[in-house]
């Protein structure tokens, strides 16, 4: 039936057409490890989130800010779920400027859970100046802001290689096979045992990359778990209601459509 093949062709076109992003042209295929938050029942692995937070504060936060998060988010449901005490202790390690006080002076105090994550640089210019002109992007939305999301971040962290002979890179520029254009101004951030995990997990580069990617994905989408859980319930509900509606429709129409 020619009509049917037309229909299939059309559906095919729709599905390949509708996403407005362009697939990365001639760059390497991204690494795609099995993340716990993938899929319909995706959930964050708490231990991985907590380790990921450790990698972020001990390594990435030297250059990357995460200004949209507050320390209290760390104890929020669906996140790393540190206890309130642990969160207080984490926050108190950072110093913020507060004020003015009654004498009109600004003063320093240790952070509270309600404070924003401390940024490494006072402004973008300072960040660029310290990084050879490149801006280490804020990490609050990073996992949503790149084609490939978590896979892209994970791949970048593992994509450092010696540059091929025919490519000459300037000082402070590094070769990364997953970065579009292959040159990046971030020095390889993760090396073996860059952090020491308190739960005894071995801090291999892959492990740290995996954990920090999990953490960054949560940071970009803190309600992911709730969304997927609610989504599943809603879908089941809608399936049942649609089935009911279908039979109601059938029944109604059977009054005027005698069975053949």
């Amino acid at each position, binding site marked *: 039936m020619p009509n049917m093949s037309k229909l299939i062709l059309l559906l095919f076109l729709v599905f390949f057409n509708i996403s407005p992003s362009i697939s990365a042209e001639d760059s390497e295929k991204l690494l795609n490890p099995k993340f716990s938050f993938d899929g319909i029942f995706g959930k964050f692995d708490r231990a991985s989130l907590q380790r990921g937070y450790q990698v972020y504060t001990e390594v990435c936060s030297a250059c990357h800010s995460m200004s949209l998060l507050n320390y209290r988010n760390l104890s929020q449901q669906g996140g790393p779920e540190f206890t309130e005490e642990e969160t207080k202790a984490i926050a108190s390690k950072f110093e913020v400027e507060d004020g003015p006080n009654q004498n009109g002076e600004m003063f320093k105090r240790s952070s509270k859970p309600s404070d924003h994550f401390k940024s490494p640089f006072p402004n973008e210019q300072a960040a660029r100046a310290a990084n050879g002109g490149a801006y280490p992007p804020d990490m609050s939305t990073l996992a949503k802001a790149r084609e490939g999301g978590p896979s892209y971040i994970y791949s970048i962290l593992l994509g450092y290689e010696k540059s091929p002979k025919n490519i000459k890179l300037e000082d402070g520029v590094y070769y990364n096979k997953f970065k579009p254009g292959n040159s990046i101004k971030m020095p390889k951030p993760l090396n073996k045992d860059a952090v020491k995990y308190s739960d005894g997990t071995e801090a291999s580069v892959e492990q740290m990359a995996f954990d920090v990617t999990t953490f960054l994905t949560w940071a970009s989408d803190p309600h992911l778990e709730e969304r997927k859980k609610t989504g599943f319930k809603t879908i089941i509900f809608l399936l049942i209601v649609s089935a009911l509606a279908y039979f109601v429709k059938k029944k109604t*129409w059977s009054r005027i459509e005698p069975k053949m």
Partner: protein
Amino acid sequence: MTEKNFNSDSEIIKPVHTSKVGGSPFKGVAGWIDNRLPILRIFKYEYLDFQVPKSLNYFWSLGGILMVCLIFLIITGVTLGMHYKPSSSEAFNSVEKIMRDVNFGWLIRYAHMNLASFFFIAVYLHIFRGLYYGSYKEPRQLMWLLGIIIFFMMMATAFLGYTLPWGQMSYWGATVITNLFSAIPVVGKFIVTWLWGDYAVGDSTLNRFYVLHWLIAFGIVGIVVFHVIALHIVGSNNPSGIEPVDTRDTVSFAPYTTSKDLFAMLVFLLIFVLFMMYIPNYLGHPDNYIPANPLVTPAHIVPEWYFLPYYAILRSIPNKLLGVIAMVSSIAMLGLLPWLDLSKVRSSVFRPIWKQFIFLFVLDFFLLMYLGKMPPEGVYVILSRIGLAYWFMFFLIITPLVSIMETPLQMPNSIHEYEDWKKKGKIKTLKIF
């Protein structure tokens, strides 16, 4: 003569009825209200007793689906508006704050965002339905035109809405599109500055775009009311394109159409929920999660998927002014259709040749959509020009010619005969058609 004299000074005396209380088919409180404010009887006549053709397929559920989309867009939009801050320094963070800190803010925002896309999916299917079954023909021309006005307003609303989160694509999309007005000779530059409210896209632009975004959205509601009133005057078309004549051809709106539409709506909702809950950002662009930065141009500036075909048309012409004219007229062409198609037969079920060209037109639409997201170079430009050529040829040449030359298939005399022929396999269509 008599009309001229018909005033209080006149000698001719006629009774007047300034009060029209009465005439309700209802009793009791309902009757009391309806005698004074006839909304209940309008509802009864126009929705409960209303007769629609029996042969309607699921394409006829889309209008109702569109209404539901619009209502939910407004509900979610108003809710977002209570937390959103239309200023260039706060917009991005206020949207993020909605997603992070506002109770169910993530749900409301993802719903609004994906509903906008699904609104367009539904409206494209709705327009296709009109095209395929000739719903734009006598006596439904005005409905069709109202629909095109709605479509233009939707596009304006969606474009303005997309600038609101003030990400990179918001900013650069707004810059590219507003700059198009500079193509207008002499006054172009002035108009652009006037639109911006500044010498560049910035804070004042965002603020007015926010106001216009929901102002036009409410305007859509107004035109939709006209669209629906007109529908209740001219009645629904149907897959056979033949007007109903007796009760063998029709069913009453409730419970037949309502039960069918309800099912269609639920299926639509199901697909929508799948997108919103599992791939909420699939239809968007990742760059829009990078805060707007006037100093950094994104590698590719691409509009939302529903604008891609027109974007391809725009870029296929090297002259900016001509490009803009082609883009706008490509959509406006639809409005000429009732006068370009001279065939008396509505439904393309009976027009085997025209049907093929419609199919090609749909292919052309998807081809242009694909080209709209490719870089404007080499073979892509050439293909865009071919796509553009077919688009205009379809409306201006093929449609009138085929409508004159084609011999339609033999047609049944009534809708119930059509149904009968379909059962006997005398009419070949897909089940969903």
